[in-house]
């Protein structure tokens, strides 16, 4: 995805600037991973989510080396070594992305234990619904795990989510919003177990996954187990090439690695000790990198992140920082009837975080106040009600008494007469 966006920028800015070769271990070209969930739930199909197909690459003279693994990089002779041969480069972009983290618990390598990363995983899950009374367990109540669970549930599969924290999406939601989301997921047929620890994956006679066992001994029978507990950047190639690598490939504000001719992009990079899993910053990186490659000035500045969950009927929005702390104030709106929950977190009259559940229409507006660092003091009483009420009301009457009325001009009265 990130490389696709990079190519879009390059092509748009200066088609002749580079002669591009694109390596991809997957068979196909670039598609929008974010849209895998709608494919899983059956609301979209693969064709809908392809962003760059073979025709596009041909049209823009991109040499595609798909379904081919990169074995090594030789930064000295500036050559990339693929399974099917070498390609010399002037500038190299490493966008190897990330690999889902598989908890190394007993049985994690059994057949029927998968991650949720690519179209293959998606198709595996879809395939499951051909089996009558199919059951699945998803480990991980984050965005990806819940989308996987909801997608399978939408296809009639009996799904249970196992989540170790107290409420789902705990990195994006506070407990009340997490609670509302749990209820909505359960209404869609997804079972959710919070604060549950998995101990091992059990196999059946067929040596396939049979069940997940929890620390309390519970066994959750399943035909498929999906692990969605986070990602690990793919850094081996970069590491072998001798580039600076911590958790990810270290890049500076111009997306340059420790080697001036090699750049990093996407989920494989680490910028100021931060890794990236959501799409917005990846697109920003792609834009910055395109400029860098074209010799223009550009700087990658991570923005506050905002999250949406692509599960139909679970309308939530989360942005910024909403952890409780001494110096933080919360404004909380709760509509038990319409099941709407909103929490704004304020620090020194600046909005620093927002959690919306049930009505996210104003998400972008709050997000802008967060990123702009607006002084919300004058709007505070109305802020949570969104742009429709965005007016300065500091002059409102504070009682039922209409304000004092000025002295009529027609009167001859001297202050002296008032001693």
């Amino acid at each position: 995805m990130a490389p696709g966006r990079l190519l879009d920028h390059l092509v748009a800015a200066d088609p002749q600037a580079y002669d591009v070769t694109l390596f991809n271990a997957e068979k196909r070209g670039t598609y929008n991973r974010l849209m895998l969930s709608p494919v899983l739930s059956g609301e979209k199909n693969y064709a809908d989510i392809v962003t760059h197909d073979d025709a596009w690459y041909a049209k823009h003279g991109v040499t595609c080396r798909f379904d081919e693994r990169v074995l090594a990089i030789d930064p000295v002779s500036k050559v990339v070594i693929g399974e099917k041969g070498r390609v010399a480069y002037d500038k190299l972009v490493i966008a190897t992305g990330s690999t889902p983290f598989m908890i190394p618990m007993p049985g994690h390598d059994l057949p029927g234990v998968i991650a949720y990363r690519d179209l293959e995983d998606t198709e595996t899950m879809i395939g499951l619904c051909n089996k009558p009374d199919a059951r699945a367990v998803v480990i991980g109540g984050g965005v990806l795990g819940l989308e996987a669970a909801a997608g399978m549930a939408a296809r009639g599969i009996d799904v249970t989510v196992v989540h170790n924290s107290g409420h789902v999406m705990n990195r994006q939601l506070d407990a009340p919003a997490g609670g509302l989301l749990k209820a909505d997921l359960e209404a869609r047929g997804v079972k959710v177990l919070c604060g549950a620890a998995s101990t091992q994956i059990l196999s059946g006679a067929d040596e396939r996954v049979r069940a997940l066992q929890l620390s309390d001994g519970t066994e959750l029978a399943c035909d498929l187990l999906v692990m969605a507990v986070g990602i690990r950047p793919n850094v081996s190639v970069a590491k072998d090439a001798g580039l600076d690598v911590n958790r990810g490939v270290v890049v500076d504000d111009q997306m340059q690695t420790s080697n001036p001719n090699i750049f990093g992009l996407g989920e494989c990079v680490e910028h100021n000790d931060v890794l990236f899993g959501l799409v917005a910053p990846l697109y920003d990186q792609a834009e910055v990198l395109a400029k860098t490659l074209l010799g223009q000035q550009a700087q990658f500045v991570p923005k506050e992140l905002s999250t949406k969950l692509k599960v139909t009927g679970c309308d939530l929005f989360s942005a910024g920082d909403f952890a409780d702390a001494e110096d933080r104030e919360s404004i909380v709106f709760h509509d038990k009837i319409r099941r709407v929950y909103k929490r704004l977190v304020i620090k020194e009259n600046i909005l620093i975080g927002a959690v919306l559940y049930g009505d996210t229409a104003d998400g972008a507006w709050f997000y802008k106040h967060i990123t702009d660092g607006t002084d919300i003091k004058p709007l505070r009483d109305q802020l949570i009600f969104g742009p429709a009420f965005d007016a300065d009301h500091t002059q409102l009457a504070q009682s039922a008494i209409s304000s004092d009325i000025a002295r009529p001009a027609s009167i001859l009265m001297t202050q002296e007469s008032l001693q």
Partner: protein
Amino acid sequence: MTLPCQSDETRSTCPYCGVGCGVLLKPDPQGGLIVRGDPEHPANFGRLCSKGSALGETVSHEGRLLAPQVGGADTDWDRALDLVAEKFKQTIAEHGPDSAAFYVSGQLLTEDYYIANKLMKGFIGSANIDTNSRLCMASTVAGHKRAFGTDTVPGTYEDLETADQIVLVGSNLAWCHPVLYQRIVAARDKNPDLKIIVVDPRRTASCDLADLHVPLRVGTDVALFNGLLAEIASQGATDQSYLAHVNGAVAAIKAARIGDPNVTGLAPETLQRFYDMWINTPKTVTVFSQGVNQSSAGADKVNAILNCHLVTGRIGTKGCGPFSVTGQPNAMGGREVGGLANMLACHLDIDNPAHHAAVSEFWQTDRLSPKLGLKAVDMFEAVGDGRIKALWVIHTNPAVSMPDADKVVAAMKSCDFVVVSDITAATDTARLADVLLPASAWGEKDGTVTNSDRTISRQRPAMVAPGQARADWDILADVGRRMGWDAAFDFKTPADIFREYADMSRLGTVFGKDFDISALSDIDNAAYDSFEPQRWPITATRQGGRFFADGQFFTADGKANMLPLTYRGPVAKTGKRYPLRLNTGRIRDQWHTMTRTALSPRLSAHLAEPFIEIHPDDADAVGIKPSMLVQVKSPAGSGILRAMITDRVRQGDVFAPMHWTGETAPSARIDALVPSVVDPVSGQPESKAAVVAVTPFKAEWYGFAVSSGEVGPNCDYWARAKTRTGYRLELAGAVTPKDWEAEARRLFNLPDTPVQTMIDASSGKARLAFYEGSVLKAALFISKAPVAVMRDYLATLPTTDAPHAIAGVSPADQPDPGPVVCSCFNVGINTIVAAIEADGLMSVEAVGKALQAGTNCGSCRPEIADLLVKVREAQTQAKEAAE
């Protein structure tokens, strides 16, 4: 509005102030009334004020008392009235006639009054019948009698239009007698030379027209008019030929010269301007009202004014004279009929043996009270100390309106037997009754009233009384019969009573008194029904007109009396503990204790909570900021009101309205702070000169609420006002409740209605909105500071689809009309200001053209004029700032 009475309309008169405006009534399909001014009535010629215009909103049967109650339980008339008759009989048998008392009201029609007076004075045999007119008119009655020999209003309303100068003394005519004020406005438009002087410690709305405002110190009127009298004498402006008909001029002038006008606190140039304007304008009418009457020197104030008119002979001729304007629709009728404890009937005197004999003869009774009765304040003293054991209160609310009101409540609680006649059980006084009697209300009642210029008009029924409600004369006469005086109280209709009353008034002429309507003594029922407004006297030889131009007075020697007067300040003295002077009075859109006006959403919107006007310097001194709540303490009691910081009051004075009650704002029963000090001559309480201390009320939280249903507030400060959709509430407390949702559910009585909440804990804000489906039932807005929300917008939301009520403001694209200024057309202050700014409107007329505001009753015209000034000042300031 100029059409004469139509066939489907009933001609009647307004139940509010003493102007006595004619109204035309037409029942509407919703069970209310469509009300308009009677173009043919001589008091108003079609005009109505905001209160009169809203009468139709006050006749719903909401809160009406529909059946007699004994000990709080419904019963029938026989049981209730047998009990009343029995108790009164028993009490007077055991403890004598003076152990019984009636406390009645200027709301009573003359026929009701006549029966009450006849029953108490003539047959129970005590003069312990007094009326709330005691709180209102007694000083004028006393002043008139001392000067003229009778309680006579010499002039007529036409004098206001033919005068060259009108002096308003202690009268905010613009708000309290708006139609007379509008007549003056119209007269001024015709005659730009008409001068208007306002003598009042406050810069009231009536100052809008004034050429001169004389902001004298509270209670110094005698010093001012003594000063005027002395100046009249010094300038040789006396009328020697007229003084041939006047006693005591020399002594009065001598006393006046001793006085020191500087106690008025007025600048010398203001004093001189007042003297010169008064002296140089022969056709001067001096209008006076409660600012004069409600004083421990009230009678003297009246005589100080009368002195000046007598010494200049400016009385009883076209366009000049002293003019008392009364506060109630039938205060005058009550005075004529003898409704006061110190009068007999038809302006005759109890302590005059000849009068006594004549009335005994006329009523065929040997029980007629031989001596004066107890006046209001003494009456409730006697109730408190047990001398009075059976009390009947009719259409008035002494638990709120009497001075030292808490003491009055205690007295009634301690009384053996308390009967209350009213149209509702929801009054502070009705809640103290042993027996509660449902009376018919205005719109149902049938009889006559007399207004401030002696014009007798009919009140006619346009609706049927609900439930078991009965006319007051009927209830009283029934009790008279049940007490054994069948013949004396054998009346079938109000006309029967009126004929007897008119016949009795013959005695007026017999004893050389002013009041005589004997020409009506044989009026038949048809003529009574179609009776046209007529000014008394109405005799074979005389019809209405003015008094005293001929120098003939109703004293023993036929001469008027000028009195030598010495200024006496208010009894309560300000000092360290109580540094401020508390003035009380009416506001534009409310009436007395609101039992009627509070039913009208329109009227309740103008000033929707009780307040105290305080001068900016006095507010600063104790740290009172705008919209704060203020704790007011007097030696008699204390209260909590909203601060209105304004230089309309003098430094050292505060003003608070008299209207709020235990039903509408318990902490604002202002008469609980007023001491029961009275005028030694008139017995009228000094309601406008208590001494108080004010401090900020330490509110931990403030609240505003709207609700479609009944509300049950329970906190240190609350004020409830009616809206079109239910109620609005102001709230505050010294202790913050633990759980706002529980508190709100209790307040609105919505135990399980779904709720929407917004909590901003660190700034102490909590908001709750209750919905049935998408329809708003109620909403509560809490804050540590006075709540800043769009009150008048929110007040429209209950019962409607209002998903965003909890935001507290209208969406950015919907403007907020702001607090209502024009009640008739419901136009808010923001709407008016916006129109003035946007369209550059320059006059009240222009505002009227653009928004209708001020084009019906005109009561808000002074406020609109003030807004025009305010906006223009703001604009010039803005310009200057820009330059």
